[in-house]
């Protein structure tokens, strides 16, 4: 194992058990060297979070460390008294958890929560601790830290709360930082910034880090070494590059737009000037979700709609199915204006447009068996005679490679990946022409994502379907789409063929988005790149939008004019539109 003088922490024979259960962790041995970033991975339920906490000598209520030693410096943490442990925790070993908003006390200002940890461990005075808190908040990239220090956690976004947590953890300059899925639920650009910060801190201060994650991109981009757990035991302990080369089956490849090259035909779906706002309760203000959205989609084509949370991409999907009524704009499906259909006609149109939703568990009635959930829509539309319904749903399941034995089960008894395939099967039972895929992979483990994408690609060829794939996961979009539409704050900022967008993005936002994408390849680590376009600050509120370019406040290339002038989507090259007045100029600058 690692050189003992260089070792920060080593665990020997560590076992954790919940009362009367089989051990959650058994006989774990691991070492962490100074300045090292160790990735801790494994499927859900493998015990990786439990291990992360156990390294602090902590367990959740009801669990117990039954065996083992954890050496930190000269001390066995498990042999120390509670008071001695209190000293080490937070000062020498710090923790970041995956749900930062519930990890912070809801009733104290976040600045105070940082300063009191600092005070506790560094024994400083109140004023000094407060200064330190502000300093740390600035360090983790929070604008206006003096003001934010007085905020309560519910006033912060998830990303900001996560940064507060890291500020808290780093404020005492710990020797070891344990981060338990710190970026789950964050947008890609925020995730990238955040991980960058952590990485830089580690490199600068020599802090060792344990990064618990399931994301191969993160492991590949940021970790030196990867430990994989399987059912509570260490199954791999290898360098990151070795881990990636042995475990990763897929690598990103942009598919060329082979199909759907029929621009002269009439589009299957045409959206013009779509606008959707939500009224804000108790005020006259509105939240702008979608603005001036236009889109064409041809039969057999697969279009990716990407953007971060709050960009309005899901709202677009819902408007297409008329699950939401749009404020303005026209949606035409196969020549039929959806604005005017209702009642029976609407139901007939909906049969041809189906949706697959983000959370498979949420998209099935928890009380119904899979069979009932699948039979019900068949009965409504009487697509097949009742006697053949059972055969039809079995056939449908076979199509998505799911065994018919799931029919008698309830959603909670199935894994997310299987259930999502059942959801696809359910949509396909309607014999639709067009599928809206609303983040179909974001709740799934990486392996399941690949399966789903494979199924979708296969079905598209088999059935000649059209897709609108809504996703923030660029890997999925790159592998499954012919064309990509990038949205930011309700507007399309760039659209064009997949390869062009990925390889030659024009809009600064697209550039940042692509740049934030973590490829599952240690050789193209983001941290090693030099040409990154990083956005500053935070997304403006969709209630009080800027007058000019929505990105102006964050764009590194913004000029004064960007602040004032409203941007329009204009053709950049054939089939490639960009909403940036400086697009041409930027390309020229780049070229020169």
């Amino acid at each position, binding site marked *: 194992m690692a050189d003992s003088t260089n070792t920060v922490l080593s665990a020997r024979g560590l076992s954790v058990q*919940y009362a009367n259960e089989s051990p959650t962790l058994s006989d774990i041995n691991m070492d962490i060297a100074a300045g090292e970033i160790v990735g801790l991975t494994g499927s859900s339920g493998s015990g990786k979070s439990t291990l992360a906490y156990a390294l602090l000598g902590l367990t959740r209520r009801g*669990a117990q460390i039954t065996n083992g030693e954890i050496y930190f410096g000269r001390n066995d943490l498990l042999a120390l008294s509670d008071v001695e442990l209190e000293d080490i925790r937070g000062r020498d070993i710090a923790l970041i958890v995956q749900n930062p908003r519930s990890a912070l006390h809801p009733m104290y200002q976040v600045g105070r929560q940082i300063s009191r940890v600092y005070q506790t461990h560094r024994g400083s005075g109140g004023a000094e601790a407060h200064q330190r808190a502000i300093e740390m908040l600035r360090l983790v990239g929070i604008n206006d830290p003096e003001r934010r220090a007085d905020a309560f956690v519910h006033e912060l976004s998830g990303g900001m709360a996560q940064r507060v947590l890291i500020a808290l953890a780093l404020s005492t300059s710990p020797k070891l930082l344990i981060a338990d899925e710190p970026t789950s639920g964050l947008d890609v650009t925020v995730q990238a910034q955040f991980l960058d910060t952590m990485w830089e801190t580690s490199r600068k201060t020599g802090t060792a880090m344990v990064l618990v994650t399931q994301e191969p991109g993160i492991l590949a981009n940021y970790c030196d070494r990867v430990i994989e757990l399987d059912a509570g035991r260490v199954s791999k302990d290898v360098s990151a590059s070795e881990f990636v080369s042995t475990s990763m089956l897929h690598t990103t490849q942009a598919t060329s737009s082979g199909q759907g090259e029929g621009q002269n035909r009439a589009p299957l779906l045409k959206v013009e000037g779509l606008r959707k706002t939500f009224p804000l309760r108790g005020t006259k203000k509105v939240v702008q979700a979608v603005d001036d959205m236009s889109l064409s989609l041809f039969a057999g084509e697969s279009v990716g709609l990407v953007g971060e949370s709050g960009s309005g991409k899901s709202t677009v999907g819902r408007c297409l199915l008329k699950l939401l009524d749009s404020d303005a704009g026209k949606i035409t499906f196969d020549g039929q204006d959806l604005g005017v259909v209702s009642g029976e006609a609407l*139901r007939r149109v909906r049969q041809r447009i189906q949706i697959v939703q983000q959370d498979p568990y949420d998209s099935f009635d928890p009380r119904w068996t899979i069979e009932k959930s699948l039979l019900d829509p068949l009965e409504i539309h009487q697509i097949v005679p009742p006697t053949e319904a059972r055969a039809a749903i079995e056939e449908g399941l076979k199509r998505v490679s799911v065994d018919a034995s799931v029919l008698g089960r309830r959603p909670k008894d199935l894994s997310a990946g299987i259930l999502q395939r059942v959801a696809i099967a359910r949509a396909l039972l309607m014999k639709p022409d067009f599928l809206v895929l609303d983040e179909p992979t974001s709740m799934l483990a990486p392996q399941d994502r690949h399966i789903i994408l494979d199924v979708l690609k296969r079905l598209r060829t088999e059935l000649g379907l059209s897709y609108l794939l809504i996703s923030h996961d660029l890997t999925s979009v790159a592998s499954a789409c012919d064309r990509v539409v990038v949205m930011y704050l309700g507007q399309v900022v760039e659209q064009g063929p997949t390869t062009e967008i990925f390889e030659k993005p024009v809009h600064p936002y697209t550039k940042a988005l692509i740049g934030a994408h973590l490829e599952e390849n240690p050789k193209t680590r983001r941290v090693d790149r030099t040409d990154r376009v990083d956005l500053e600050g935070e997304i403006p509120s969709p209630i009080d939008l800027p007058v000019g370019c929505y990105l102006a406040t964050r764009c590194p290339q913004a000029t004064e004019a960007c602040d004032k002038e409203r941007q329009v989507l204009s053709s950049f090259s054939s089939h490639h539109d960009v909403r940036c007045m400086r697009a041409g100029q930027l390309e020229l600058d780049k070229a020169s």
Partner: protein
Amino acid sequence: MTDVAVEKDQDSLGVLAWIGIGIVSVAIFLAVFSPWLIPYDPTQATENVSTPPPPLSAWPSLFWQTIVGDGPTPHWFGTDASGLDVFSRTIEATRTDLIIALSANIVSVIIGVSLGVISGYFRNIWTETLLRTSDLLQSFPVFITAMILVALAGRSWVNIVLAMSFLYAPIYLRLTRTEVLALRDRSFIEAARALGKTEFGIARQHILPNAIGPSLIQFSVTIGFAILLTAGLSFVGAGVRPPTPEWGSMIATGATQLVLGDWWPSLFPGIAISVTVFGFAVCGHILEKRYGR
């Protein structure tokens, strides 16, 4: 992980849960079969006024006597000032109180849950008004309002049930509505809509079955309170008509005898009500722990 913790909590409740279920089962059994269990007509005055219960030492032989049918059945719990058999009345009162409490809750659940689904699922000015009205009802002093309502409509168990429904329906309405509001935004509702289900079909087949859970848990808790309220109303003379056996009115009339040293007419119904309501409270607690929140 948290699931494991909950699991564990249930285990420690084992004995208590069985006590609760046992009490409730016995109460229901007595309520259903009381006419075949009681030795005396619970409303028939006799000459044996205010007789104390037989001493405990005499019970075995009296019990034997009763079984072989030798001589009159003893008044196990004594008789009250009207010469009514306290034992028969205590048993028969289980029926009265349980019927009232159950009916009131069933009516409230039906009204509250259906209005809750409507007001949560279809939001407009009418359902908003409905909601405000039900809020207002909840700021009424429960006991006094029930007294006024019963005074208004007269003393009969139907009126007590209606008065209580008036007070309890808002609770169910609130509970259901909160649940429906959370359900409305669930993906499977949207999915059902995309799959062509009608709004009414969604409300009936998806919303209602999924929203009723908390109300059913509340049901068990509220039954206990309904029994207390029924008894309390009878205690101040706004409950069922005498001589209908009812715990509260038995305690009230028995209380006046207490000072004369006659402890039995009020003690036995007092124990009955304490135990029964406790049983329902325990069951409510168990249900809440197991299925709630």
